[in-house]
């Protein structure tokens, strides 16, 4: 589970962008499951000290390669950009419990910002001749969505809809708006009056069909967005798996640093380790506001 992987590529998605694609060749690809991540050593000295978790966005078993995407968020990811092709990186992985891969029906992937990355692995894992995949994706602005989308989602020929906070691309608003439109049929059946302040959204999102569907959903993004998305989906009767983020130390379940709170089947609160029990959890067990 501890490997030295060779760096095949480590480059910004566009000139000057703070979003990078990192391709690693080694043992991780052989067993990687969608939703799992790797825990990367970013430096050689003791500062920054800890490894950094990055989702596996794609894997090619034949070539033995995994593809990761990362955004330069601070010192650790900044150091990571300095690693050159042909150098090697110390990698723990693949780690964590990933997504359930549906065998049939429809799969809704709901992403906020860089939350798209782990969902890409799930999208690649489903048999698209049997599963209808649709991606709902929110981001800050066009520049972000285009930079990332061109390198990832857009060429996949998958159904998708986007929203931006500033309206510079797709729907002006949040990904929850897209989701509400997408689920309008289900929500209607549940007695919700349908999308508010998103007039015409059903069309935008391409949803709103009348017939009963077998949908599953998977979501990743900022916590607030995940909470809203999960709420909507569960309300609409759609099961959802969410990929959580938490600050990590060990990444393998030993330190209890990455706790989240879940409500177990018997209604009691319990802590789970995001790194080992997750990062993917059943949306209905997650307790969003952490309790003492």
């Amino acid at each position: 589970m501890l490997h030295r992987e060779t760096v095949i590529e480590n480059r910004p998605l566009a000139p000057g962008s703070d979003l990078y694609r990192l391709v690693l060749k080694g043992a991780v690809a052989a067993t990687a499951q969608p939703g799992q991540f790797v825990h990367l050593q970013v430096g050689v000295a003791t500062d920054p000290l800890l490894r950094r978790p990055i989702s596996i966005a794609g894997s090619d078993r034949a070539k033995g390669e995994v593809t990761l995407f990362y955004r330069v968020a601070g010192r650790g990811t900044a150091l990571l950009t300095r690693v050159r092709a042909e150098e090697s990186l110390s990698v723990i992985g693949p780690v964590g419990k990933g997504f359930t891969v549906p065998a049939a029906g429809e799969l809704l992937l709901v992403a906020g910002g860089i939350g798209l990355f782990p969902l890409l692995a799930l999208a690649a894992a489903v048999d698209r001749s049997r599963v209808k995949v649709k991606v709902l994706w929110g981001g800050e602005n066009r520049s972000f969505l285009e930079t990332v989308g061109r390198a990832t989602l857009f060429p996949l020929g998958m159904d998708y809809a986007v929203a931006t906070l500033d309206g510079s691309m797709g729907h002006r608003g949040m990904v929850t708006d897209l989701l509400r439109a997408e689920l309008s049929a289900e929500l209607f059946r549940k007695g919700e009056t349908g999308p508010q302040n998103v007039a015409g959204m059903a069309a935008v999102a391409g949803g709103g069909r009348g017939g009963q569907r077998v949908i599953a959903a998977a979501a990743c993004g900022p916590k607030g967005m995940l909470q809203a998305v999960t709420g909507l989906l569960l309300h609409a009767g759609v099961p959802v798996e969410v990929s959580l983020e938490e600050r990590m130390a060990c990444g393998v379940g030993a330190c209890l640093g990455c706790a989240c709170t879940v409500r177990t089947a018997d209604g009691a609160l319990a802590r789970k380790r995001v790194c080992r029990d997750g990062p993917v959890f059943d949306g209905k067990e997650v307790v969003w506001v952490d309790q003492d």
Partner: protein
Amino acid sequence: MTKIDLTTRLGSLQLKNPVLTASGTYGFGEEYKAFYDPSLLGAITVKGITPLPRRGNPAPRVAETPSGMLNAVGLENPGLEAFLATHLPKLEKLNTPVIVNISGFSLDDYRLLAASMPEDSCIAALEVNISCPNIKGGGLAFGTDPRSAEEVLKITRRHTRLPLIAKLSPNVTDIVVMAKAVENGGADIISLINTLLGMRIDLKTGRPVLGNIMGGLSGPAVLPVAVRMVYQVYQAVKLPIIGMGGISSWQDAVEFMLAGAAAVGVGTANFVNPMAPLEILRGLETYCREQGYGAVREIVGLAHR
């Protein structure tokens, strides 16, 4: 190649080698099995156990600091009953001596924990964590008041025949006073250091990073403080010392042993390099061979010459 004698005697506790893991950084020994066989180590120390299960502190529980990390896990653990029923049987299968870290919030807690640990299992010793607040004694940590520390050791001593390791907190004016107190209380071994109390503030929110506000600082950053305390305690008390605090390499381990540690604990380094304990063990062996020592215990305390 000459064979180096790696065995270590810590009072009545005889270990095959001096490299241990530090409590709270190695779970219950399961997680690192994917990397190597834990029975290669001298012993493994498990997460602190309290009488009742604890959910611990809300997130975030860890924060990075320069060459270190803060943790505020809040002693999350399954509690005594589940430990005995679920974890101990699994530990038994690891085929390695286990040190159980016991943590209490009252003298009664310590008494109960000591009395409940079987003396005929894989449990090789109890490590008495005195860094927790003494709830009945006004909330001050047992580990910062010599009299409370002595009492904790005394009561624990009365309820078990297992070797007792007193784990000292570095957040004190005079570590030697604390070492003498636990020696008087009947400790067989001293381990140090636990974490330094620290905190960070998140510039984005303007609030403390940790859910618990303050947390324990560990990792390479604290190494010079830990080496100093091992050196001081070695001069002042006769008990064998398990040194820890920032040990990441065999060089660090040698530093601790020269300062007076008869064994070393590897904590935060596990998170960075899961193979660290094994690499340290091999490095110690090579060091002894190259320096002409036949047994690793020969280097203990040499810096005091």
